[in-house]
């Protein structure tokens, strides 16, 4: 059971994009996954963005403009400071020289203030506009990705789904696509802003004082050193922490889901002991990871402060020598502080992009899976199928080495019932799956009314069949909608009549909301037997020529069981039926019995013929059904 929810956008964005570097810091911890084909995948991802080319250009321009305006701020502010300082110093000199002092040049300062206000406002507006547009682009791209994955899943053969767990497939649609969404939304513009800031700040600093710039640049390798050395260390510890956390979660899941067994076998103490062992290891890995990642910030601040002190001292000396102004020093201090974040961020974004591309690669892998054989272009249309089924020389295997069905021949006529019997895992469902073309046969052919099933569309083929499976799949919605699922556009009257035929009408009407009762996620608000009745009603409504039935073995109480049997009998009337049978009456009444074992049909014939053969079927029959009356039967 998996109770871990996919990380939500809300969870991965504490309070907005990058204000405290919420997203960026998180990524500094975890080691990035490496994509196999970085370039190719990135290129494909970029192609998904191509419909928004114009908007992206606007985003780029806005981001650059916004950053540039913000960068200009300190320089202009510095000019105002210089003006004030010079005014003050001028007055100081004037006082000493007994000359009249002047008031500060408020016209000039006011002018600068107005420029600053407009600069900052414009910068903010551009910044917002850029993020506003990007939100649309990012989410629409992600929407397209999800849509494509879903459409792809609809075209994939069942073989694909058999080989993977639901969780595996789901995590592509949720986690992987989510990662892409977050990156598009935040990291892309962050990257642009950071690069522009670094370059822009550098240029502006150069225009103020090349020498001071060089001094500031001396601290740059230190940043690189810290991000390189410490971040690498922290990634190791985070990986260790992640591993222990996985172990701990596994143990907790195992123990809590198996609570009954833990209790029954008196294993509480041993379970706690093992938990504490893992928990202690998690602690060791955890605090180290937190510590090392926690050191990054102080170190960055230290380097920042180092730059600050150097600027203060060297800048101060330069001012006394008249080489630069006091405002320049102030601007430099602000610039050196603006420097820290973009550098940290760019280092992180490299990691983020790497894991995003890895996510994208997994999504694209899914999109590249081999699809079902395309539908024939000149498909034959059936008007009213009779339901004659012929299986000729059919060979099939899930994987090519061991044939599961070998040279099978069956001829079934309209209205006949074919019982398929055999032990668990004998391949009974496989046969059924071939009929409705869930899997493609390797050799031979299957025909319905003389037409090869590969010559009609899957849709047409499946509309000929109706299915009632043991796995009573119902979806989250009303009972009415679930029955109506059998055929699109069914009227209320038809739905009720189908429910009546399936003996489901009565229990539905006893529910407080009747047909409007909403089945919850696990459909746990109705019993297993009632679910079975609903699936029968669904099949009745579909009114197929050929039926596939899977008789339930357990978990249904006896009264509902009787109803189910009656409903199934009604449903089978006048139709060709393939029944995966467990009930003796069904088997005995069948026109043909297919006895399967280990994937092969080893015997076929009717009940009498098979008993006379004295083979596997006779053996099976005796142990299963006749056993009750034999004294030496295997009872405890």
């Amino acid at each position, binding site marked *: 059971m998996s109770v871990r929810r996919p990380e939500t956008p809300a969870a991965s964005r504490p309070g907005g994009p990058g204000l405290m570097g919420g997203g960026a810091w998180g990524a500094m911890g975890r080691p990035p996954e490496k994509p196999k084909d970085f370039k190719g995948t990135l290129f494909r991802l970029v192609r998904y963005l191509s419909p928004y080319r114009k908007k992206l250009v606007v985003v780029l321009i806005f981001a650059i403009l916004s950053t540039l305006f913000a960068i200009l701020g300190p320089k202009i502010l510095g000019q105002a400071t210089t003006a004030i300082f010079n005014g003050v110093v001028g007055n100081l000199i004037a006082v000493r020289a007994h000359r009249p002092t002047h008031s500060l040049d408020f016209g000039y300062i006011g002018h600068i203030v107005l420029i600053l206000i407009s600069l900052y406002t414009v910068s903010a507006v551009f910044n917002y506009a850029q993020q506003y547009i990007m939100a649309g682009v990012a989410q629409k791209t992600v929407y397209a990705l999800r849509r494509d994955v879903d459409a792809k899943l609809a075209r994939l053969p069942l073989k694909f789904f058999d080989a993977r767990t639901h969780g595996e497939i789901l995590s592509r649609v949720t986690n992987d696509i989510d990662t892409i969404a977050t990156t598009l939304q935040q990291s892309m513009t962050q990257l642009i802003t950071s690069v522009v800031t670094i370059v822009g700040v550098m240029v502006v600093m150069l225009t103020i004082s090349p020498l001071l710039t060089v001094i500031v640049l001396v601290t740059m390798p230190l940043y690189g050193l810290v991000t390189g050395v410490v971040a690498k260390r922290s990634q190791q510890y985070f990986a260790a922490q992640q591993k222990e956390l996985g172990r701990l979660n596994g143990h907790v899941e195992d123990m809590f889901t198996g609570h009954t067994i833990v209790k029954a076998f008196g294993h509480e103490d041993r379970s706690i002991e093992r938990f504490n062992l893992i928990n202690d290891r998690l602690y060791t890995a955890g605090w180290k990871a937190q510590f090392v990642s926690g050191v990054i910030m102080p170190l960055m601040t230290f380097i920042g402060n180092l730059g600050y002190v150097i600027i203060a001292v060297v800048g101060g000396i330069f001012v006394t020598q008249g080489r630069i102004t006091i405002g320049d020093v102030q601007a430099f201090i602000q610039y050196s502080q603006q420097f820290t974040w973009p550098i940290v961020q760019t280092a992180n974004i490299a990691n983020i992009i790497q894991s995003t591309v890895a996510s994208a690669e997994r999504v694209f892998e899914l999109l590249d899976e081999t699809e079902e054989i395309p539908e024939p272009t000149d498909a034959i249309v059936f008007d009213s199928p009779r339901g004659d089924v012929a299986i000729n020389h059919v060979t099939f295997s899930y994987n090519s080495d061991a044939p599961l069905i070998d040279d099978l021949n069956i001829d079934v006529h309209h209205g006949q019932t074919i019982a398929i019997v055999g032990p668990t895992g004998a391949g009974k469902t496989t046969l059924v799956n071939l009929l409705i073309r869930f899997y493609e046969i390797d050799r031979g052919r299957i025909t319905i009314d003389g037409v090869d099933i590969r010559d009609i569309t899957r849709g047409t083929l499946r509309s000929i069949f109706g299915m009632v499976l043991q796995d009573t799949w119902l979806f989250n919605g009303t009972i009415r909608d679930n029955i109506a699922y059998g055929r699109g556009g069914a009227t209320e009257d038809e739905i009720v009549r189908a429910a009546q035929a399936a003996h489901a009408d009565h229990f539905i009407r006893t529910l407080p909301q009747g047909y409007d009762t909403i089945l919850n996620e696990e459909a746990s608000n109705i019993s297993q037997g009632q679910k079975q009745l609903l699936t029968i009603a669904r099949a009745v409504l579909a009114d197929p020529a050929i039926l596939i039935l899977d008789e339930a073995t357990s978990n249904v109480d006896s009264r509902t069981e009787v109803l189910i049997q009656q409903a199934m009998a009604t449903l089978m009337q006048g139709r060709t039926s393939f029944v995966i049978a467990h009930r003796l*009456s069904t088997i005995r009444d069948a026109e043909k019995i297919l006895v399967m074992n280990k994937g092969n049909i080893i015997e076929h014939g009717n009940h009498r013929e098979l008993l006379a053969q004295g083979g596997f079927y006779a053996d099976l029959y005796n142990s299963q059904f006749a056993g009750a009356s034999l004294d030496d039967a295997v009872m405890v």
Partner: protein
Amino acid sequence: MIRLYQFLKPYSTALGATVAFVLLQTLSTLYLPTLMADIVDHGIARKDIGYIVSTGEVMLAITVGGMVCSIAAAFLSSRIAVGFGRDVRAKLFARVETFSLHEVDLFGTATLITRTTNDVTQVQMVTLVILRMMIGAPITAIGGLILALQQDRPLTLVLAVAVPILVIAIVLIARAAIPQFGLMQIKLDRLNLVMREGLTGIRVIRAFNRVDHQTQRFDHANTDIADNAIRANRIVALLMPIMMLLMNLTTVAILWFGAVRINSGGMHVGSLIAFTQYAMQIMFSFLMVSMMFVMIPRAAASAVRINAVLDTVPEIADPLHPIEAVGGPEISPPSPTIEFRDVTFSYPGAEQPALSDISFSAGLGEVTAIIGGTGSGKSTLVNLIPRFYDVDRGSVLVDGVDVREMSQQTLRAKIGLVPQRTVLFAGMIADNLRYGNQDANDAALMHAAEVAQATEFISLMSDGLGATVAQGGSNFSGGQKQRLSIARALVRKPEIYIFDDSFSALDFRTDARIRAALKREATDSTVLIVAQRVATVMDADRIIVLDDGRVAGIGSHRELMHNCNVYREIVSSQLSAEEVA
């Protein structure tokens, strides 16, 4: 959340040290602009290079000191927060292990797992953030304010305007954005639900030719979440530009009013520069605190969930003076191994009792079968024997002793349970089989596997008994898991076997074979079988027919066919007329 912090007690020394280090570090950061102002006003204005250099040296020393302090704080806070998480987690896990099935049902397994893992991690993370930033932020705010006041008092009025605007802006944006993200979570769940349904129902969807319908449903959910995400992100996008704008405008305001103050001779230029920096530090700390208020509610919700588990005391506890079983086969006359005396039991909050007035007894070497429809109380009945629940009225006796007077340990050591829902643990097959009896040798394991008809598939695996079992046993089929679960109970060689619908995933043939082998194996044990299939129970010494929690009949197959309607009904639904005879 505060209640949880009693777990911080062992760390009080480290906690105090952390606060001290954060304080020192904050002071060092705060002191730098003052020194900078000194450089400007004293050093530069008087062209005193010596002063500039010596002040620079002091600044450098302070910077180094600040770094050392914050690294020390990072070290301590990591150990405190992670250690705190470890302690809460351990306490939580140990508590859940004492829970009876009732408490587990009350919470649900899934949420208990989340509480022990995610919720604790959430609280741990916030604790770390609090230690790292929350402590620092108010100190910065207050210290910054004091120093700013020192630089120039009237100018702080600018802050009196700017800070409230800042806080209000954050609160407004957060208020607008948080519900949007809440909605997004719901829509994401919806998207996952549709997707999951599409996967689990893939055969039905394709068989009914409703692929397009499913695609539409998905597209609807997909559009819905995309629209919502755009809306949410556009609101959040406001945050950064507005914050930056406010900060920058504050700087501009300080410049203007500072210039006015300087002009009137109330303040120096260096003070202006320092003041600007203090203003930024103060506003940043308010920003942090506001962010904290966005983060804390989520952690508080986690804390509430954790506390709910810690506050739950299991209703089933061992007696103060447990009695060892005095009855049993050793004494004469032997008391029955299992005896139910007028047992009535209701699940908490249920209107109807799940079991009413159940009485029966079962002795050594006997097989008792329990049959009945779903919800008739079969599993409930057997769950009372290992005292997973306590009865409302009457009593359950094992070896002549009320199960409430024994220690749970003693009681459960007598029982080999095969539950309805098969549970295997991650590890090797051998580990799983040895679960109930650590000392069993490989021969004993193989023998049990033989009886449970599991040898065939175990021997097919390359590692045999050493083969790996994935978490939850997901690499085995239902039938295989059931057989391993049966073998596990057999290895225990218990006095009492309980098979709770343990043959449902097996075909009739394997079912019959296991029962035959069991019959030879369990001659000196008491066996209870819960089943749905008549064929499984027909040859039991005693069949208990349950109907709506009451005994509808007790007796052998033949007797019940004569005098029990419910039984006849069940039989006729499963066997055709000939077999019934």
